[in-house]
Structure formats: structure tokens, C-alpha cells
């Protein structure tokens, strides 16, 4: 099987179903029974392959993990309750008091808040850098750095960084390159081919099949030698290349408790079967709408890497296989203009998700980034006049018509 959709539809679970079910059944139970006290001891010691408790592992969740790993060509996967649960578990597995995350200054607002608000008081530092400034990245990757972290396409700024160049800097510093690939799931490209060591993502978005359920995932692509990580070196001594996955499964993820529900895992495994169709449809809609907006005099600027005018258009084309994601942002004069346009829309919905089947719009400065002061928002690339549009899979002319009639009120 070489085609992405073929693999996602026909890839088989490790264990055949007892009744020959054509879809992986939902194991909606908490605990698993053992035949003897010796067997349960061996399972807890990790000397017997067995599910014991669904917070730690579950057959339906494991099936999704295997599918996600196959999609990315990853060594292994740990599925989580949400994308934020995935990022939290990964950061806590790799970093701690006295260490430093080197992060893009253009991160999703809640991710930035996790690092700056939640974890900083525990002694974890974050160096905020522009990933387009390789000299600044190199300077921040001094001893003490535990991970280099960015989004494949930043949200909502739509900045695209040179992942191969960043991978080179991370390798030289002995630090893993971690990329949030939520908005560019591995359709048409493979993050590991660009030097990414670990993928972290919200499966709530594209993968869930249309905002069906919450979920997240951590994928170890197998390229980083975890003996170089001060936090994971003891795990590497025991588990070799599985160090990160073992540390998550047997300590950090297990203890934090952010497990994916089996029901959500089943919905998301179904979502994977149509992922390629939806990613391509949303990207086509995004390009059509971006081109329309770029021609409107009341629109001051459009950020979409699929536009030839985007400063990293060529880089994005080379990295992501000719697909540029389903999100764009555009600028109007000010916040009141943004509100007037949003309130005039009849088809496009006002909501805070991305990569739904429905096209959604939001004003980031007053919502996702509202906890940050105006100056910080400017530095994060979220000015008052910016709107984010997440394209669904409707028919593009309907979306263009809706935006056109809304622009007339400005």
C-alpha cells in the first residue's frame, strides 16, 4: 500500500477482531482482566504485552496510534485527550526547572500561555524567537535548551519557517526539533523528510473528520538520539530509541492522565479515512478565497502561503508538497471593521476551531490572544485589525459570495 488514503482505509490492526469486525471496535471499558496474579504483576512490570487500564493504554486508542504512526512513518505514537494535552506532556517529558524551550514567537495563544503563564513559575524558561531569523535561533540553542518548538505554519500569522535549516541547527545543538503539524497533517509530504524529530498535534482539527471530537498525539519520528536529552538519558539507558515513548507511556502521560477516550479514538480513526480528501478540499478553498480577498480594496493584506505574494511561498511549496493548509488571515482597518464584517457574514460561522468541515472566522486579538497585552500581541503578530479564516470543505463560490456581501458594509 503506497497511497495515503489506501493505507488509512485498509491498514489493519495488530490484533484481528474476534468477530471479524470490518472497523476496529470501540473498547469502551476501563479495566482489563488477567488470568492470574502472576500475569498482572508481569503486565505492571512491563514484562507482558497487555492492556491493564484505559488511562494508560486501550485497544481502540492503540489502533488510532498505529494509524497515526503509519501516516507519518513514525516509530511510535502516544494519543492524548487534546492537542494541548499532547504539548503539555511533551514539554514536561523533555524540560524542567532550569531548562529552556526555544519557541517560535508565533505560537498558538494557548500554547504560548502554557509556556509563559503555566510552566514559567515552575522554573521552565522559554526563549521566544523569530524562526525566520536563523542566527537568533542558533544563539538561543545554547546549553540548557531542551527542545526547539514551532508550528509548521504559524496560526494565525501564517509564517513558514525553513524546517531543514532549523533541523540542522537543532542537530548541532543536540536538541530535538519538535513541530506542531496540526494544520499540515502528512498528506503530500512527510515531516520526517524535513528533519523533524517529533510531531505534536491536535487531532481535534483535520484528523477528527469535521470537529467530531477532541484529541491529540505525540509522534516520535525515530531520528533523535535521546541519550542527548538530560531528562530522557536515564530512559534511553533502559529503552534505547523508545526512550521518549516509554517515558510518556510509563510515567509522564500516565501520571498526567490526559488520555484519549476510546470513543474519540474511533471517530478519529474514521476521520483518517477521509483526511486526504478534506485536506485537499480545504486547501483549494483557502487558495480561492485568498485570491479573492487579495483583490479587495478594503482588505489591507492577506496572509496565505499559497499566494505567490507570500514571502515564504516557494519554501512552503517545497516543504508541504504543493498544499498550503486550510487557514488564512487577513487585515482590515481596525477592530470595529473586523467586528462589522464578522457580524454581516451569513454562511461563515463565528467560532474558535480550525480545520472543521465548516468555514469559521474569528478575531484573534479579542479572543485567543486576549490574555496578552496589546504590545505583546503586536510582537506575536496579532494586530487589532487581523481576522482568521479557517476554510471548510463547502463550495468555494458560496464562501466568496458571503465574504463579498459582508465587505460591502465596510
Amino acid at each position: 500500500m503506497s497511497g495515503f488514503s489506501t493505507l488509512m482505509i485498509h491498514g489493519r490492526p495488530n490484533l484481528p477482531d474476534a468477530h471479524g469486525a470490518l472497523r476496529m471496535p470501540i473498547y469502551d471499558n476501563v479495566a482489563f482482566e488477567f488470568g492470574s496474579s502472576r500475569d498482572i504483576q508481569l503486565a505492571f512490570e512491563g514484562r507482558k504485552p497487555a492492556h491493564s487500564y484505559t488511562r494508560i493504554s486501550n485497544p481502540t486508542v492503540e489502533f488510532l496510534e498505529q494509524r497515526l504512526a503509519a501516516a507519518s512513518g513514525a516509530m511510535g505514537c502516544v494519543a492524548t485527550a487534546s492537542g494541548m494535552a499532547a504539548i503539555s506532556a511533551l514539554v514536561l517529558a523533555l524540560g524542567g526547572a532550569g531548562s529552556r524551550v526555544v519557541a517560535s514567537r508565533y505560537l498558538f495563544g494557548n500554547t504560548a500561555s502554557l509556556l509563559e503563564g503555566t510552566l514559567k513559575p515552575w522554573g521552565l524558561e522559554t526563549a521566544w524567537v523569530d524562526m525566520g531569523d536563523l542566527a537568533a535561533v542558533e544563539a538561543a540553542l545554547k546549553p540548557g535548551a531542551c527542545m526547539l518548538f514551532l508550528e509548521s505554519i504559524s496560526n494565525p500569522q501564517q509564517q513558514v519557517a525553513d524546517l531543514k535549516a532549523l533541523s540542522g541547527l537543532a542537530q548541532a545543538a543536540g536538541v530535538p526539533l519538535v513541530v506542531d503539524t496540526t494544520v499540515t497533517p502528512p498528506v503530500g509530504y512527510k515531516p520526517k523528510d524535513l528533519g523533524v524529530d517529533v510531531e505534536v498535534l491536535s487531532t481535534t482539527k483535520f484528523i477528527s473528520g469535521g470537529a467530531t471530537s477532541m484529541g491529540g498525539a505525540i509522534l516520535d519520528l525515530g531520528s533523535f538520539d535521546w541519550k542527548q536529552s538530560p531528562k530522557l538519558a536515564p530512559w534511553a539507558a533502559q529503552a534505547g530509541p523508545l526512550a521518549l515513548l516509554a517515558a510518556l507511556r510509563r510515567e509522564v502521560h500516565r501520571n498526567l492522565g490526559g488520555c484519549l477516550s476510546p470513543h474519540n479514538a474511533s471517530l478519529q480513526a474514521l476521520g483518517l479515512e477521509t483526511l486526504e480528501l478534506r485536506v485537499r478540499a480545504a486547501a483549494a478553498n483557502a487558495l480561492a478565497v485568498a485570491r479573492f480577498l487579495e483583490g479587495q480594496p478594503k482588505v489591507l493584506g492577506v496572509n496565505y502561503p499559497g499566494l505567490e505574494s507570500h514571502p515564504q511561498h516557494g519554501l512552503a511549496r517545497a516543504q508541504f508538497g504543493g498544499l498550503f493548509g486550510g487557514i488564512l488571515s487577513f487585515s482590515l482597518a481596525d477592530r470595529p471593521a473586523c467586528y462589522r464584517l464578522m457580524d454581516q457574514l451569513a454562511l461563515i460561522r463565528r467560532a474558535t476551531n480550525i480545520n472543521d468541515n465548516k468555514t469559521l472566522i474569528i478575531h484573534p486579538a479579542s479572543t485567543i490572544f486576549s490574555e496578552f497585552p496589546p504590545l505583546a500581541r503586536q510582537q506575536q503578530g496579532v494586530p487589532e485589525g487581523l481576522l482568521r479564516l479557517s476554510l471548510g470543505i463547502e463550495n468555494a463560490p458560496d464562501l466568496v459570495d458571503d465574504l463579498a456581501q459582508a465587505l460591502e458594509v465596510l
Partner: protein
Amino acid sequence: MKLVINSENRDVADGQTVLDLLGSLKVESPDMVSVQLNGEFVERASFGKTGVKDGDAIDFLYFMGGGSRA
């Protein structure tokens, strides 16, 4: 030879590698297992050339949890 396998004393045929033991002991889910020999991690690529001798302790570990295929 006498080995300590997953904390149990066992008698096995002499002259085996880690890879041989995975087969002769019918270790569950061999492609998921991690191996420690006398407390040291053994790289998967070295299973076939890592010999085991009398008195060694060998552990077969499943760090990722997951179900048995047996």
C-alpha cells in the same frame, strides 16, 4: 545454560543469541519487545550478534503497553 529470564531461573540450550531466545522462548510480540541483558539495553540491530552466556540475566520489556498478539 542457566539464565535469569524476567526474574525467573530458566535452563535453556547453550550457544544462543538474543534473537535465538526470542524464538526459542516464544517471546510475545517480538517486534514490540525491548531487551535488557544484565541491565544494559540491547539495540534491536544487535539481537542476532549478541550472545548469551551461563548466569546472564535477560529481561524482555514492553515499554509501550499494548495488547498481546498471542
